[in-house]
């Protein structure tokens, strides 16, 4: 039982973590709630499907292309649509939601609502501690670990990372210091969308690919980011794991209630926030008085 909960919780949490990380990054830096984040994940999944199944390109190559394509799309979307209304928080939220809906409908028209399948990178399964785990799941966790390390290295060791962190902390001063804030924001959006693309490549083979697949992960990602605390990438990853474990605990301890997994993990989020209003690792900003 314990092994089951441990392994499954890790898997569920790990898959949310990749998505949560990208979302948190963009929010921390550009202060934008990009509700279309999981829609990028969906686009990457469809892209891989089209290139690998319809066009017959090798899987790894398709994945790389998908990540690049999604990253670029993210940058373009940000520059064209979101940059000019950055100041109005709610406007950004609504526009990004509308963009997500737009993508959904376009994919519905092109691909119809039929379910499709992206073949897994590594087919088959194995047993860990007596628990059946598919190789693709393991790959998802390993990849999310790598991504975390990669982003951490990017943010702390490189000049670009420093610039991004500067913009996240105080964009006015960063601007004064000569950092091109607009470009940094665009780039961060690109990286974030690229991360969503990686999630699409790695996570999509685990689920059915269809135009409505972006809605459920969106809620879980938002919950993870909020629980972890806005502005903290580490927080959102840990929160994703916590929510994943919460869901798994429900399924194993109350099997008759497994349909409540979503509701219960949200309950967990609510309770934690009541006790700690900034989230687990949230950075408390002084309210700006303008």
């Amino acid at each position, binding site marked *: 039982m314990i092994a089951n909960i441990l392994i499954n919780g890790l898997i*569920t949490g790990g898959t949310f973590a990749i998505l949560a990380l990208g979302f948190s990054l963009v929010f921390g830096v550009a202060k934008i709630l990009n509700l279309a984040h999981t829609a990028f994940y969906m686009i990457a999944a469809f892209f891989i499907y089209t290139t690998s199944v319809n066009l017959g390109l090798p899987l790894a190559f398709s994945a790389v292309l998908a990540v690049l394509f999604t990253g670029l799309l993210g940058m373009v979307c940000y520059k064209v649509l979101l940059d000019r209304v950055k100041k109005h928080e709610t406007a950004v939220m609504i526009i990004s939601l509308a963009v997500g809906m737009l993508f959904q409908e376009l994919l*519905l028209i092109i691909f119809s*609502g039929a*379910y499709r399948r992206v073949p897994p990178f590594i087919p088959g*399964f194995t047993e860990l501690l007596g*628990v059946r785990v598919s190789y693709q*799941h393991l790959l998802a966790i390993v990849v999310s670990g790598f991504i975390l390390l990669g982003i951490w290295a990017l943010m702390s060791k490189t000049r670009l990372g420093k610039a991004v962190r500067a913009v996240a902390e105080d964009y006015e001063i960063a601007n004064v210091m000569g950092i091109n804030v607009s470009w940094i924001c665009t780039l961060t959006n690109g990286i974030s969308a690229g991360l969503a693309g990686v999630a699409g490549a790695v996570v999509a083979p685990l689920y059915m690919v269809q135009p409505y697949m972006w809605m*459920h992960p969106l809620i879980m990602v938002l919950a993870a980011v909020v629980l972890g605390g806005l502005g903290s990438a580490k927080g959102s990853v840990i929160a994703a794991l916590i929510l994943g474990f919460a869901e798994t605990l429900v399924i194993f301890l109350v099997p*008759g209630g497994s*349909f409540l997994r979503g509701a219960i993990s949200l309950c967990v989020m609510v309770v934690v926030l009541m006790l700690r209003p900034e989230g687990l690792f949230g950075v408390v900003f002084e309210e700006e008085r303008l």
Partner: protein
Amino acid sequence: MRSGVNQSSRFNRWVLTVFGVSLVAVFLFSAAEVLAKPTVKFGVITTTKYPITTHQWWGAQMAAEEINAAGGVNIGGVSHDIDLIKAESNELASVTDAANAMEKLLTVDKVAAVTGGLRGEAVLAMMELMADHKKIFISSGSGSKETSEKVAENYDRYKYYFRNTYINTVYMGKIQFALLDITAAKVREVLGIKTPKVALLIEQAMWGNVQIEVAKKLLPEMGLEIVGVWRPSPHTTDVTAELTAIKSAGAHMIFTGMTGPGGPVVSGQWGQLQIPATLSGYNAFGSWEGTWKATGGMCAYEITYDAYAHDVAITPKTIPFMEKYIQKYGQKPLFVAGAYDALYIWKEAVERAGTIDADKVVAELEKTDYIATYGRVVFHPQGHQFPHDVIWGPGYMTTVGFQWRDGKQICVWPNGEALFPALSTDPGWKGLKYQGTQDVQLPPWMVEYWKSKK
């Protein structure tokens, strides 16, 4: 420089010609209208946003084309062409939209009757409008028993409702238990286990609650032991946790009931992880032909049922219908394609009644005894627990239990044996076996696993 008189007379001539031509055109057009056949409008309320629901529209479309090609509907001696009008119900996303679509069909398009409907909650809303406007509604999708129970509750108001497919959820439950029974027989035969352990993996839904109550009483009688009950959401996207828990519980068989998009998730992940238990029950989205591709063939050895299975002739109409359907639409029909028969049933009732007046057609519909593409359609009469529902049983509509093998749906039930007595005491089951029916096969990985455990 042309003179003014010439110019104006030229212009006048031009105007006169145009006028004359348009007069002739109008005359010809209206003549064509008058000479064209009178039409009767028939509404189809469905959503084409999901892969399984497009079949409802396709079935109706094919029927309308065939009927018109054969001369149309004879209403009181005058032959009418069917004008099929589709309304997008969007019922899986919004019940309000579904109700609006129904009202538009009934009041703006002024259809004589409607078929369609899939989601239980939406069909209940559509029934209210049907009753308000007193028009016929032949439901060809949802199986919720609550709809026909309403007819029993208030016959005068809801009598315009009929359901020609699917059988209702009570009958669906019986079929699932029957499939479990024959699978259990195979498990006993091959593995020699006297009391196989069963895990219940049934979606959270009203009808699922009923099934679990019934299962708790019935399974011990059938010589089966329940090891646990898991209730995923009908829209679940991941059941790996549930499946690994089921494996840990030592189950030999999984009894499933999924009517939502979570169905292929269950069958796909079950096959991918090669969970050592049989998978039988009901999987609505999983009986769609595309599920094989959508799960990458991982749903192999799953046992579920549908109104149609490849190459199984239930009635003389089945195979010709399926072949024509596959040729036209590229997919094998799903149960909702029974909208095809809904149109024919309505046509015959109208022709017997001689009018499209709803009350008279209702009286004729109640007398329906029609050989459809999926069985013989007779409706339960007023006074029955489920009035106006299609009768389930040997000689009527049975559906076809099938097992996925090599990308095809191989019929495994009815298998010619009598049903477990608690399910049905109808003697007609014994000997009822469609051509092409084969034995149930256990998934090879499951047999290996349990044999090696001994």
